[in-house]
């Protein structure tokens, strides 16, 4: 086996804090990045972009966001859909109010606005814990969706309350609007996903991350050893919402192009992102990607197999798809309750020991 950490010695504490301590991992990672940036954009078609990769990247961002809150800081939230809506409506208002400003700035600002809203709805977390908090965040979910549905200012007084993303460009390339090419969509999402994943990784390995994890693992003890729960929890809400807001902004402006609060950002979205992080692995950036991939790809795959290959009626296929995904979720949880990320880590651990277990 090539998979060895032997020979990989660290000579400074800085090196020791690296994201991929094993050299082979690091190379693998660079290779994936190279393919993602240098190969995929040239071969991608609009099906792969719109049905698979773009939603995957966007959900991965949302999943990282929720993972920061739930996986790292231990605050279970079911308000993700609502926060994504904040991002979407913020970017819409910004795009239509200040057409001259670059879209990237709008998207980041939308994240910032969502962060503020997230902090607001995070306040109850200081008293409410566990599932009570999860259910309490539903208040955010329902209230926000209602608000965007009810107040015409948010959707620029359009007749139906739908919002549409106008065309915006980066360096002359359209990234939103109908003229956007598949690779442009993919690239902007990829850049955001990679940068944000890196930021998330930095935050979680530093002192903020440790505060979050301390609060997660044992909040009382954390407070007694000097973690201020107020700032720790609220910063988790802020950072998480920032990510989720960006995901919402991208979902609306780049991916869907049009959206309506209750349909695109309903409670199902909150659940979906939560599934992703649990299936992928709580408290793991890699897990966020894995979970997003699993839940975006699996249904598409199943649908293609059942309908296109077996020729089943679509409704039957849809019902059976539901059964299969449900059963697979349970199956994965039984095999490894800590998600795909842990499964991966365990596999690596076994590889490392191979061929001499114990």
């Amino acid at each position: 086996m090539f998979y060895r950490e032997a020979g990989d010695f660290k000579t400074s504490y800085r090196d020791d804090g690296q994201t991929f301590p094993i050299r082979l991992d690091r190379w693998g990672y660079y290779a994936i990045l190279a393919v993602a940036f240098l190969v995929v954009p040239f071969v991608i078609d609009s099906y792969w972009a719109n049905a698979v990769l773009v939603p995957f990247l966007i959900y991965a961002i949302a999943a990282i966001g929720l993972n920061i809150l739930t996986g790292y800081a231990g605050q279970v939230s079911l308000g993700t859909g609502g926060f994504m809506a904040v991002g979407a409506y913020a970017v819409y208002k910004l795009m239509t109010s200040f057409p001259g400003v670059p879209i990237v700035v709008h998207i980041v600002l939308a994240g910032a606005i969502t962060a503020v809203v997230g902090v607001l709805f995070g306040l109850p977390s200081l008293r409410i814990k566990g599932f009570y908090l999860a259910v309490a965040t539903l208040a955010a979910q329902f209230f926000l969706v209602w608000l965007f549905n009810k107040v015409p200012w948010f959707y620029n007084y359009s007749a139906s309350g739908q919002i549409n993303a106008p065309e915006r460009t980066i360096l002359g390339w359209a990234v939103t609007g109908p003229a956007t090419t598949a690779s442009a969509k993919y690239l902007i999402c990829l850049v955001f996903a990679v940068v944000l994943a890196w930021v998330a990784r930095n935050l979680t390995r530093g002192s903020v991350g440790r505060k979050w994890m301390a609060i997660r693992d044992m909040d009382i003890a954390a407070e007694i050893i000097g973690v201020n729960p107020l700032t720790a929890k609220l910063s988790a809400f802020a950072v998480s919402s920032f990510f989720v807001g960006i995901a919402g902004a991208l979902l609306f402006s780049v991916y869907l192009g049009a959206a309506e609060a209750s349909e695109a950002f309903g409670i199902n979205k909150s659940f979906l992102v939560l599934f992703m992080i649990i299936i992928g692995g709580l408290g793991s950036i890699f897990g966020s990607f894995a979970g997003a991939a699993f839940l975006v790809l699996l249904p598409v795959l199943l649908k293609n197999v059942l309908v296109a290959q077996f020729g089943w009626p679509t409704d039957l296929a849809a019902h059976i798809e539901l059964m299969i995904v449900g059963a697979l979720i349970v199956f994965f949880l039984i095999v490894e309750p800590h998600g795909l990320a842990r499964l991966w880590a365990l596999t690596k651990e076994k590889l490392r020991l191979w061929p001499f277990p114990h």
Partner: protein
Amino acid sequence: MFDAAPQRETLLEVNNIEVIYNHVILVLKGVSLSVPKGGITALLGGNGAGKTTTLKAISNLLHSERGEVTKGAISYRGERVQELDPASLVKKGVIQVMEGRHCFEHLTIEENLLTGAYTRGDGRAAIARDLEMVYSYFPRLKERRKSQAGYTSGGEQQMCAMGRALMSRPEMILLDEPSMGLAPQLVEQIFEIVKAVNEGEGVTFLLAEQNTNVALRYAHYGYILESGRVVMDGPADALRENPDVKEFYLGMSDQGRKSFRDVRSYRRRKRWLA
């Protein structure tokens, strides 16, 4: 005190078991022991030696911790019990008092005790009688019978856990670290109760203990576990006189007990591990 006499009937036999957690972590590397009926057998050893794991392997509680017995055999009265679920084992008369007490926090003390009688089918009257019996062993519990277990002190919880086990009318109790965190007086008291229950009700005990001193005073026979292996065993009296045991487990040197202030080096090597 009597010798661990081979003439006594063997109640429990553990034969060369191996336990693996999470499919990768090997914790017990071939542990064998036998527990005679009516005796108090002590399982001694440092942290992480595998005492708890051994007890859980016997009571079949490993599954919920993602551990499994991969080799060896466990038999109770000559019958293999590895495949039984914990409930059937309790019905057969083997019950475990877990490390860290594990009382049902939200149930009152009395309700906790009553759950101990869950597997019994001999009627309310008998259960009520045993409740009184438990209260007579642990008068403190009677005072606190109506309070939620979560709010009682460590000692009370330990008593509650033991009382709960007694409520199942067991033949054998697996007792995991009964003295942990208890005041000296209570430690004595708990062990006195163990002795009383052992003599009065004829219950067999297998107890895992760190407090070697006390354990060897009350036990009849002892096993010493180190990193998942039995490294020494013998009658309690003999163990107490063993110089290694004296030095490493009883903290005695040739000059009697040595002061904790005087310990100088952190690392000493065990002769048998050398």
